[in-house]
């Protein structure tokens, strides 16, 4: 079939249309897909030369993400995500956070609720016992010399 091979110019539909209007291609010889594409055109014309779309992508953040951050500060990530079938499957952090939301009330600090939830879940399921507290990395390690000390000496 006749046709331009310059793939960067316009779209395939437009190129065939041009051939038909210029009588380079007879109407009976038009490609099989032509009528279908005319009736159901693509949502965006598949042009190679097109302006860059605006780079505005939002970040997905949930209200319970603050709790999630606290959770990962406290506990070691001890379980895995099940990719085979995640229907009806919840990860340990997710279960913890859902329980936390139930316990949330005014006047209670975050640490208090954390302890409550932890105690409750440990009671229910044995696997929650495995949680280990992370060492607090914000405090300086033993043996390191701080600036104030070097100044005094």
């Amino acid at each position: 079939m006749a046709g331009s091979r310059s793939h960067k110019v316009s779209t395939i539909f437009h190129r065939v249309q041009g051939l038909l209007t210029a009588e380079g291609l007879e109407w009976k010889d038009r490609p099989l897909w032509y009528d279908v594409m005319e009736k159901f055109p693509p949502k965006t014309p598949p042009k190679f030369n097109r302006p860059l779309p605006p780079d505005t992508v939002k970040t997905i953040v949930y209200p319970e993400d603050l709790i999630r951050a606290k959770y990962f500060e406290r506990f070691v990530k001890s379980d895995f995500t099940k990719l085979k079938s995640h229907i009806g499957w919840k990860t340990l952090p997710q279960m913890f956070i859902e329980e936390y939301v139930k316990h949330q009330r005014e006047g209670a600090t975050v640490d208090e609720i954390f302890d409550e939830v932890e105690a409750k879940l440990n009671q229910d399921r044995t696997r929650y016992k495995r949680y280990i507290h992370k060492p607090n990395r914000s405090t300086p390690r033993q043996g390191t010399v701080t600036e104030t000390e070097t100044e005094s000496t």
Partner: protein
Amino acid sequence: MPKLFRQVFNEFRRFGDTKGIHIIRQKIPSRSISTYGTLNQHAENKDVNSENSLIDPLEHHDYFDIRKTVTVKNLFLSTAHYGHVTGCRNPYMTPYLFGVRSGIDIIDLEQTVRHFQDALNFTAHIAYRNGIILFVSRNKMMMPHIEKTAKACGEYAHCRYWSNGIFTDMVSRLGQNVRLPDLAIFLNTQNSVFQTHKGVLDCAKMLIPTIGVVDTNCDPRLISYPIPANDDSFRSNMLYLSLFEAAIKKGKAKRAEDANM
């Protein structure tokens, strides 16, 4: 020889009453593939199977009843919304994104559904017109499944290395001129991690429409009907294959049905 419904329709138009027929493009003398006359009816609000089956398939929004097969839930459960790490993103994929969750791009499945429906409808129409459909992929994991699917629906697959000029320089490659496909379905539009599949470019050159599952690291520009979705997961790939297979089979079944009418 069974007549195609178009032939029946042409006879009807020639000998019957032409009052209710609305003809477009009267200047064009000959046609071999599709009708240009349509019955003057509001086809979109009717169920084709129960009502008049002498409707031009192109006049119906969903002639093959295929659009309902794709749902957001379906896609979500097969992890079609997972993209790549933000650093890998192709800038032309940003309109299809829902957002970024902890450094990973998430694809907007509502857009995916709309694109997928269009793609399936187009596939079914090509199958209905007896077009040749070629499944293309370079994903080794999916290769046997794609070939099986293509065989099951009586179409073709090319899942091996794409040598240059297989479309553009057939005579020296294959020894003779070969009929090219009418539609190429790319289940993976990447050749390697950074390169676009050479087939996408060749199809654009040879005026072959393409349907492609584009992940967030793929270039959707040259693909006629891009489907923004995860192309790495086995589960999602199997879902796409089943959907395309159903579309092709439905198109062919409709063709046989209309021919026997």
